[in-house]
């Protein structure tokens, strides 16, 4: 049986919001990265995330059936209506924080998109088939930097470890069991992220070990994003992202 369109719309919105907010944060590095090649790399990764976000948000808008476009969803919602995980909305921090986040996120997205390829929803499967190829490059990039910084100087090691420690409490939300995702997974229309955690650890833990980083202990989890309870950082991010669109409603070029 096909799940309710409202469920499917909510699910796709979560994936799209993760990609959109990740894209916005990554693009904030533009012209600020430690070297020119890295500046281009981060902008490229941001563009990939934005590409996935556009496909996902367009589809979420169609599924919801209220006639909202990708732009309506990106620019005309207030923070409580966003469904992204808290991980992606946190400030960039230093370069080590940005790379630790990219490692966590891309290892998760790679697995997620891999599994999406097999869902019964053809449109979503098509998006997964594209995005998984791009996630592989993001994961590779984050892995290289994690190794270089973690197993680098005393200072780079200290910063990389601090970044992993600071972000680890936010990883639980990615894999939190959730009735909506379970329903969709059982119907073959989505992936229950709780089923991805073991594979994610298998991907991430060896990178941390090789980078001589300590894998943090699992403690209290920071959650709420999937239900619209966000940190203050999302408000500031959205203010900047939405200001032109809201100041000039319906403008185009």
């Amino acid at each position, binding site marked *: 049986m096909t799940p309710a369109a409202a469920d499917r719309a909510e699910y796709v919105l979560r994936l799209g919001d993760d990609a959109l907010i990740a894209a916005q944060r990554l693009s904030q590095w533009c012209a600020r990265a430690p070297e020119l090649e890295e500046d*281009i790399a981060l902008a490229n990764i941001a*563009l990939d995330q934005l*590409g996935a976000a556009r496909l996902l948000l367009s589809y979420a808008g169609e599924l919801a059936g209220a006639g909202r476009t990708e732009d309506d969803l990106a620019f005309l919602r207030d923070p409580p209506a966003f469904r992204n995980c808290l991980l992606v909305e946190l400030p960039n921090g230093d370069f080590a924080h940005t790379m630790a986040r990219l490692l966590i996120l891309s290892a998760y997205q790679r697995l997620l998109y891999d599994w999406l390829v097999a869902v019964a929803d053809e449109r979503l499967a098509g*998006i997964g088939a*594209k995005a998984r190829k791009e996630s592989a490059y993001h994961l590779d990039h984050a892995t290289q930097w994690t190794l270089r910084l973690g197993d680098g100087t005393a200072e780079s090691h200290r910063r990389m470890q601090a970044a992993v420690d600071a972000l680890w409490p936010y990883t639980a939300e990615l894999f939190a069991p959730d009735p909506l995702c379970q329903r969709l997974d059982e119907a073959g229309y989505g992936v229950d992220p709780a089923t991805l955690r073991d594979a994610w650890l298998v991907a991430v833990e060896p990178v941390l070990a090789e980078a001589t980083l300590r894998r943090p202990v699992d403690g209290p989890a920071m959650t709420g994003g999937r239900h619209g309870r966000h940190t203050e950082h999302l408000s500031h991010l959205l203010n900047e992202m939405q200001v032109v669109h809201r100041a000039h409603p319906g403008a185009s070029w």
Partner: protein
Amino acid sequence: MKREEREEREERAWAAAAAVLDPELPAVTIEELGILREVRAEPGGGRVTVTITPTYTGCPALEAIRADVRAALAAAGYADADVVTVLRPPWGTDDITAAGRAKLAAAGIAPPGPRSGPVAVPLTVRCPRCGAPDTEQLSRFGPTACTALRRCRRCAEPFEHVKAY
């Protein structure tokens, strides 16, 4: 007879669309890049529908390609043309034609190695200028989404490489 006419219209429309150059890699056409998928003409001189697929999801050139295809079809006499985008099967660098690879190399952009095949062999990326096999990667991410940046250790020239995707 009608069917033949329609097929002939589709062939001419395909030729018009296939001549459009990629805006970011203008050495190759969209056909050579492998992103032109299908051209269908409605019977009786009706609408022509062109199907393309993006290289990368966020490819900013896609809007320009859509506009260029519509303009090329209009110039060829197809005023009522629609360009649609499909994601499946996803584009890969194996979709670049042999002619496309040769043109990329001639333009100083190293073509991608094959992704699929009976045996996975890591192939050397040769310098497109001097042909030396001794090249190094400067960055996995180049000036466009589909290229990486490399440098030749012999002639020291930097060059773009269409990375396997």
